């Protein structure tokens, strides 16, 4: 049970970073840390003690496989995480070229 709590604490660390940091790259890093904790949680839920990796060997059929469904979902999410991170980084580099700073308080033109 303690693994779930550690995984949750990792998520909270990412959330803390997103809320309190002011540097855009730090915020992007915190977002990807939150992503990682979610992936870990899905993999933890799908794990069974004594299960084997979900690859069928016809010569040697096994009774218990690890749950393949969370793994398939995480596989999709990892690739989408890369795409969103790349998009975020493109926006960050544009912002730096325009304002010359990565600090979100110095980007004055965004104020309403």
């Amino acid at each position, binding site marked *: *049970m303690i*693994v*779930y*709590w*550690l*995984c*949750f604490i*990792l998520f909270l*660390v*990412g*959330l803390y*970073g997103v*809320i*309190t940091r*002011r*540097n855009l*790259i*730090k915020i992007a*890093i*915190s977002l*990807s840390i939150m992503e*990682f904790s979610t992936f*870990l949680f899905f*993999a*933890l*839920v*799908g*794990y*069974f*003690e004594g*299960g*084997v*990796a*979900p*690859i*069928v060997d016809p010569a040697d059929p096994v009774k218990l*496989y*690890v*749950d*393949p469904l969370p*793994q*398939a979902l*995480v*596989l*999709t999410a*990892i*690739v*989408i995480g*890369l*795409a969103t*991170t*790349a*998009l975020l*980084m*493109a926006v960050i580099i544009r912002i*730096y070229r*325009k304002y010359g*700073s*990565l600090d979100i*308080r110095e980007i004055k033109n965004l104020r309403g």
Partner: protein
Amino acid sequence: MEIAISVITGFMIIGALYAIHARDLLSAVIACGIVGYSLVICFLLLKAPDLAIVQIVIETITLIIMVAVVLDSTREEKYQKFDRQGYFTAILSILIIVVLFYFMMNSVSSLDPFGEGKLRMAQSYVEGATEKTGSANLVTGVVFDFRGYDTLGEATVLVTAVLGVLTIMRIKGKK
């Protein structure tokens, strides 16, 4: 098994804390890499080789992109003065963390203990999957056959993100 994964998750938490508090942005990015590569080891221990392969490739590409952005902009993070807005965000984050902790306390009791769950809806995916999909790898069978529309949506998201990156990097900003 639970102890090994707990230790690695502890390392991930330490790496994440360092990544958030490092003054040098390049070392923050590398510390983010600690978290990602520890996740690869966790996946291997949790019997998910497909995820480990994908994660190690994706983490490398992400690190390369982040390092390129840091080298192209600035390495130094501005010193954060702890003013009124800083106090406000700190209090806000503690408040949100307390609320989420309360919900986690409630929901963790409904989870199965670690390693003792059972197959729920994946039962029909596992039974006779090799005959149904023709793939020896069950994860591949789920991704490309049982949940093929999900994968189609994922491809759409990928194309949209790539188009977004191309558009953002090409336009000239207004002076």
